[in-house]
């Protein structure tokens, strides 16, 4: 008995010694990493010359965090995880019945979204609900639509597209330009933006048919940048970096308008007090309907020969070709369908903002959309929607963290840290769950009974 407790003691002192040692190294590394960038700050003085401001206190905090974090990880967190893993492995695997929420997740989510605007209005009043319906609701739904569109290209057809934002831009600008130059209505331009974007998808898809993997990725990235640069430089039409403002609002099928001066203004017709909240709520439901449409189309397409051809193409292009699938049309339809959703989302974005500029279509947007698709567990629609909510909603929430000002002083602006935290979150989630939030998906073709397929069967872009 005594022997065992002795070994245990030896192990724990060993562990402590190792933890201390590793913490020391972590501190050294952190000191090296941050000494120049945190310890010193370049600032301009009155003469506009660069000077250095010293911040050794902040550096000490960074190093201390690294030391303590490393110590805790090695000494406590890691053994705890290992113990839990061992306990899990030792316990017999219990087949758990999926709960009510898990089984009906999609239905519940859609219901929650439908009651979302009234609930927000009830909680915060018409004016107070604006932020929640617009910044959270509509914005997340736009990203969901974009991610579902990109999912067709990356998740289903396995073509790595880093320039998806180009189609978003095509949709947004085709609405903005056609409505301000020709006065066409939103309901005509919405499908037209989708068609135009799909046409661009086909045009851009043609030259890249031969490319694979990373070559495809870089060329699509290049196309995305080309479109953005043309939008910036073709000032006669696009007004360059100033962007196009005063884009016409959408109307309820032409019956009620949301223009304040119009005779058939929604609020006037129903004798309601004037508020911009009605328009936002209308847009919210419109976005929701478009998302539902996108999901419906995706689910249907996956059961059709073309959808199966996409997935076959993703799994193995050579096998696909030897089975007589025309890879050219398969790839082009994938590009076109994905682009179409991007275009529709783009025109919706233009109508929501009332303003478009090339600023909104930078590579970062493509990266965010791709990250949502991958974090959602490529191919899974629900997973992607969850990922969009977490990533976009999470970063939007950071804008609301005003109470932090009371802790860190009035100079503290949480917004500054938004993208930093977004980037770090991408890394942490990926390392923690490489297969995304929802690591499984429903198979389209199955033998006798439908079983859920682990996400590790989803391969990705080999072109």
């Amino acid at each position, binding site marked *: 008995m005594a022997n065992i407790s002795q070994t245990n003691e030896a192990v724990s002192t060993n562990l402590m010694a190792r933890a201390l040692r590793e913490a020391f190294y972590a501190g050294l*590394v952190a000191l*090296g*990493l941050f000494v*120049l*960038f*945190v310890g*010193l*700050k*370049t*600032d301009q003085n009155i003469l*506009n010359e*660069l*000077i*250095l401001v010293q911040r050794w206190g902040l550096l000490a905090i960074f190093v201390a965090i690294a030391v303590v974090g490393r110590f805790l990880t090695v000494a406590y967190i890691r053994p705890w995880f290992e113990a839990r893993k061992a306990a899990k492995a030792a316990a017999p695997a219990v087949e758990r019945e999926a709960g009510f929420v898990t089984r009906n997740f999609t239905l519940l989510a859609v219901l929650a979204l439908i009651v979302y605007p009234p609930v927000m209005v009830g909680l915060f009043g018409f004016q107070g609900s604006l932020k929640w319906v617009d910044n959270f609701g509509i914005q997340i739904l736009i990203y969901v639509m974009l991610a579902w569109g990109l999912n067709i290209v990356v998740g289903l057809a396995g073509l*790595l597209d880093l320039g998806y934002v180009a189609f978003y831009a095509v949709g947004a600008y085709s609405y903005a330009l056609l409505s301000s130059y020709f006065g066409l209505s939103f309901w005509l331009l919405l499908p037209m933006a989708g068609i135009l974007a799909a046409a661009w998808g086909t045009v851009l898809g043609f*030259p*890249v048919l*031969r*490319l*694979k*993997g*990373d*070559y495809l*990725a*870089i*060329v699509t*990235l*290049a*196309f995305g*940048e*080309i479109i953005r*640069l*043309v939008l910036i*430089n073709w000032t006669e039409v696009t007004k360059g970096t100033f962007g196009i403002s005063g884009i016409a609002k959408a109307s309820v099928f032409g019956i009620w308008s949301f223009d304040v001066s119009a005779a058939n203004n929604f609020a006037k017709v129903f004798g309601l007090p004037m508020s911009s909240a009605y328009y936002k709520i209308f847009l919210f439901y419109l976005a929701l309907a478009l998302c539902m449409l996108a999901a419906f189309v995706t689910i249907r397409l996956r059961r059709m020969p073309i959808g199966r051809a996409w997935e076959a193409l993703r799994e193995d292009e*050579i096998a696909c070709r030897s089975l007589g699938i025309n890879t050219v049309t398969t790839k082009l339809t994938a590009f076109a369908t994905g682009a179409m959703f991007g275009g529709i989302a783009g025109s919706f974005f233009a109508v929501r903002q009332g303003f478009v500029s090339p600023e909104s279509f930078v*590579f*970062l947007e493509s*990266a965010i959309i*791709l*990250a949502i698709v*991958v*974090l959602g567990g*490529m191919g899974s629609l629900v997973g992607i929607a969850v990922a969009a909510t977490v990533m976009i909603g999470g970063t939007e929430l950071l804008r609301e963290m005003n109470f932090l000002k009371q802790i860190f002083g009035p100079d503290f602006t949480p917004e*500054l*840290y938004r*993208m*930093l935290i*977004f*980037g*770090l*979150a*991408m*890394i942490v989630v*990926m*390392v923690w769950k*490489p297969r995304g939030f929802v690591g499984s998906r429903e198979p389209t073709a199955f033998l006798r009974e439908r079983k859920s397929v682990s996400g*590790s069967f*989803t391969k*990705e*872009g080999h072109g």
Partner: protein
Amino acid sequence: MEYFVQQLVNGLTLGSIYGLVAIGYTMVYGIIGMVNFAHGDIFMLGGFAALIVYLILLGLFGGVPIALALFIMILIAMLMTGLWNWVIEKMAYRPLRGSFRLAPLITAIGMSIALSNFIQVTQGPRNKPVPPLVSSVYDVFGIAISLKQIIIVLVTAILLTIFWYIVNHTPLGRAQRATEQDRKMAALLGIDVDKTISITFVMGAALAAVAGTMYLMYYGVIVFTDGFTPGVKAFTAAVLGGIGSLPGAVLGGLMIGLIESLWSAYFTIDYKDVATFSILAIVLIFKPSGILGRPEVEKV
């Protein structure tokens, strides 16, 4: 004619910087098959490290001979970014090495966002102008060649020679090439694969730091977003030259530099990046594996 040669000189200078960054992309790609999107931001980090070191030197000693200052700046920037890339590889890429191919790409994009915003938060969002470090200009047969340009091309050439020697004639280079060809076999033959990959990241980062210092010296200004465009262009250069091939990266870098400066000289400057990307697309359409890349043989 003189105008043309002048643009050629400018293009070569710019191309050297792109080439140095492109090597980092191509080596990492060659060895673990991953597009290290954060590499452009490592380049920016190197530029900032050089800037801060320069300001320290200025503050401590008043004035330092410029050659010595440049040497110290480059050295510390190399160490700094090397350390950064070592830590990044260990924390963000290594855990995902066995995972599917898009996973490290996503963490790399996340890292790129995090790094540029880290610099924005810690160093402020404004442009950082430095007084010209080297300003002499020589007149060679009617062509103005500045000392900056000579330094950039010379340093690039020296580094490439050293680098070429390391990769082709040292045990470390042999380990790198073996890991590149077959990671599992290399591990079976006693090569420490993890260490080799780490060193590759550190080497790539060190070259990017030199490029960052050169960029700071050449343009005299740096800002936290400066990692993206040069990074994308360097990646373009690596792909153009055939990703995975070291001479290809340099050749691609020089080509991109030349295209950019010649296009700006003879056509509109607004569309210079459009020209670069269009040529990339055209080259890849006709030669999908890049100029010096080996065509991938697909085994069924």
